[in-house]
Structure formats: structure tokens, C-alpha cells
């Protein structure tokens, strides 16, 4: 699949999974999609390892756009991006957009075959409204 992939990173697995459900139901199956959230003990949190695994799951040669919630989700996502192998490094971006709305809109854009830059720009247009 050559469409940009979407990864959802929330502190809460329920938020992440629910957001992914919205993307699947509203946009469909044309975009690779993965989510992660929560710490291994069932509490709130994010982990670099889980984010890397989600990026791997949603991997697309066209790149992967990350939608994240607060604080640690963002810093851990940025850390995960830095830890990617060199050939993937330039193809993963963290979008500065609200997680739910951003995920649906990024996926809509991605489903039409848009580039990673266009997917990110469209998600970030939201914040300018």
C-alpha cells in the first residue's frame, strides 16, 4: 500500500483505540493504521518502544504521520522518530494537530494518495481555524 500510514499515540489505550475506530469507520481501510497507549501495568502513559512498534505496523513507503496527545506522548514520539533506522528517519513526522480530529483528517487526506507533507499540512490546518 502506497498511502501514508497513520499512527495514534495517546496516554490512554481507550482514547487511542477509540480514535483508530473513528478513522476506520469514517475513512475506511485504505490507509495503514496503528495505535498505542497506556503503560504495561494498565495505567496511563506512553512508551518509545510501543510507538516504534506502531510505526512499524503502519509502515508505508510513502511515510507515516503521528497524531499524539499531551506532553510525554509528544516527547516520546519525537524520541521514537529519532531512533528510527536512517532509511526511515525522514519519512515519519509528528503532526501538530488535535489527536482525534487530526487523525480523521490526516487519514482522509492520506486515503487520496497525498504525500506525507500534504497529510501533515492538512492536519495542521485544523489548528489555524
Amino acid at each position, binding site marked *: 500500500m502506497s498511502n501514508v500510514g497513520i499512527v495514534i499515540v495517546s496516554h490512554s489505550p481507550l482514547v487511542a483505540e477509540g480514535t483508530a475506530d*473513528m478513522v476506520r*469507520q*469514517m*475513512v*475506511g481501510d485504505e490507509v495503514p493504521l496503528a495505535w498505542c497507549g497506556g503503560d504495561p501495568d494498565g495505567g496511563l502513559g506512553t512508551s518509545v518502544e510501543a510507538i516504534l512498534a506502531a510505526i512499524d505496523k503502519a509502515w508505508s513507503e510513502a511515510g507515516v504521520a503521528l497524531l499524539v496527545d499531551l506532553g510525554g506522548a509528544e516527547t516520546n514520539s519525537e524520541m521514537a522518530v529519532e531512533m528510527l533506522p536512517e532509511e526511515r528517519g525522514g519519512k515519519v513526522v509528528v503532526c501538530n494537530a488535535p489527536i482525534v480530529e487530526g487523525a*480523521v*483528517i490526516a487519514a*482522509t*487526506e492520506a*486515503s*487520496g*494518495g497525498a504525500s506525507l507533507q500534504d497529510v501533515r499540512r*492538512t492536519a495542521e*490546518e*485544523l489548528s489555524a*481555524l
Partner: protein
Amino acid sequence: MSDVALTAEVLLEHEVGLHARPSVKLTKLAKTFQSRIELSPGPDGPWIDAKSIVKVMAARAPKGTVLQFRAAGDDARAALDALVALVRNDFETGAAGEAE
């Protein structure tokens, strides 16, 4: 729009208007055509890019709006027919109002 544009209009009967899910469907369909496609909630505009999910959603066209489309390009006719059919078929969802 500089080229000669074809136009079409259709009454928006979807219960929640042009909200999230209908907007996604409309935008996705518009993107499958090469033509430049715009829509407006009335004959006098404002005209917005029908391929922009953010702009279509932000238009917040309510139920009862007569949506205007205009398209310019090789597949403009097919694009308008498909978009009008989507709106007329209630966005192919029996569950109006399920997701605003």
C-alpha cells in the same frame, strides 16, 4: 476558476448536514477526479475546494442547504454526477446522525 465550469446543485437532506462523516465521504469522492471541484452553500458562494476536508467540514452546511457544485476539467461532468448522487443517496448511510 478560470476554465469554463460545469455546475450542479442538490438539496442536502442528510439529518446532520455536511458534518464529519458526510464531509469525509464527499472529499474522498472529489479527490478521485482530476477536475478542479468547488462547492458552495449557496449560489453566491463562498466557493470552497471540495477536495479540502478541513474546508468542507468547516463550511458546516446544515440540512436543507441547496449545495452548489462547480467543476472544471476533463472529468468535470462525471465528477458532478457522482457528487450529486452521493448527496442524493444520503451519503450511502442509513444511520443519519450517527456521527456528527
